[in-house]
């Protein structure tokens, strides 16, 4: 199974507000808020750490969840955020400043 890498899309605007993350899409200025799990994913999305490692280290340590199920949910969430151009998703590490087309898994 290949890894998935996630990076914050540099086009967005973002700020934490009372434990939630407020994100404005760079595509059409649509506003989103991320829940606690999605916020962890967003904050950990450095483009270098594989998603499975983020899930193990940051999500499974915080929530009482099955690791396999948590990874599936995280992958699904990452793809959804990528569809809104909030995250970038790739099978290879994402270099800083990269804003080209995402390669979905």
């Amino acid at each position, binding site marked *: 199974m290949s890894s998935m890498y996630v990076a914050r899309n*540099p*086009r967005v*605007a973002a*700020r934490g507000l009372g434990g939630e993350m*407020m994100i404005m899409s760079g595509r059409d*200025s649509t*506003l989103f*808020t991320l829940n606690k799990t999605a916020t962890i994913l967003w904050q950990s999305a450095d483009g270098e750490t594989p998603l499975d490692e983020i899930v193990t280290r940051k999500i499974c340590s915080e929530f009482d969840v099955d690791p396999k199920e948590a990874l599936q949910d995280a992958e699904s969430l990452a793809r959804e955020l990528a569809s809104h151009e909030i995250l970038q998703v790739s099978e290879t590490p994402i270099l800083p400043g990269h804003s080209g087309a995402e390669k979905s898994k």
Partner: protein
Amino acid sequence: MSGLLEEMTAKALSLNIPLNVQLDLTYRCNEKCVHCYLDHNDHGEMTTAEIKHLLDEMADAGVFVLTLSGGEIFLRKDFFEILEHARRLMFCVKLKTNAVLIREREAARLRDLHVESIQISIYSHHAEVHDAITLIPGSLKRSVDAIRFLKSQGLKVIIANVLMIQNMQDYPGVRALAAELGVECTLDPTVTPMMDGDRSILSLGVDSSALQQVFRDSALVGDADEFCAIPAESGESALDATPCSAGHSACYVSPYGDVFPCVQFPLPTGNVRRQRFIDIWRYSDQMNDVRSIRVKDLTTCSSCTHAATCTRCPGLAYMEGNMRGPSSQDCEKSFARTGIPSANMLAKKRAGVNLVQIRPAAIPAGAIA
């Protein structure tokens, strides 16, 4: 306002977070607009390092929407360095500019830095009218060219059209120009007094009959009868409401680091060169005084027919002498809209007295750390 934005604003209010800040980078300008409220001389603008430090503090304080304005922002040689820093901090950045200095290269850089929108002042679609307001020959052409460059980069542009005596008849033409360029257009019939309290430029503002014409224009307001309807009686919730976002979820910082509740509300609350931004926001006596005001606390206005629907600006009221008092310009708007005089207009008619200008109060010594 979208539902989610409304929710976020309510949350920011409950957490006392300044969600929106306008930061003027300079008061210097390459246009000399006849109605401008600013002193364009440089009295010691913040340095690049000071502004970057302030932006760091604002990000930590929770500021999300950062509007960079002036003066003319592109006159600062470090403008793009400041903008790059702001975007690294993930602010939603909006710009206000006359766009005269924006060419293809600048438009491309703005695209690369993902600014949310660029608001550009256009006074008329006729060069002779626009340029007579900016006092710069060729300025309309430069600004319109810039809009085209920005649009070609896929950027969101908003034309801001301030209505005055000189350009009153041209707003349909400006709206047609905006449509042709594929950009939004906003109309503002408010001329703001000079920041030092000089009210002479208010004579450039449109009169009541011109305001009536604007408020009855269905192209602007939708259903004119509904827009101009006699206001319903103010309920308890309207009287418990805050007058506007100034000091509640928004504030303004001048090029010299002075913090005010709003760009149109020159009540000094502190200076970021001497205090942390968040400390001014949270602890300034003046900011907390502004924050404490509810519609029911307003002298004259709380008993006015228009209390629930008036666009009363507390900053204009402050510049008129009392931030809890009426703003005559907004009284005129309410009257032009509905035909019903405001409580302030009736009181003045009874008293037959003129307004008294009161200068902004000095900051008490203890308010500065």
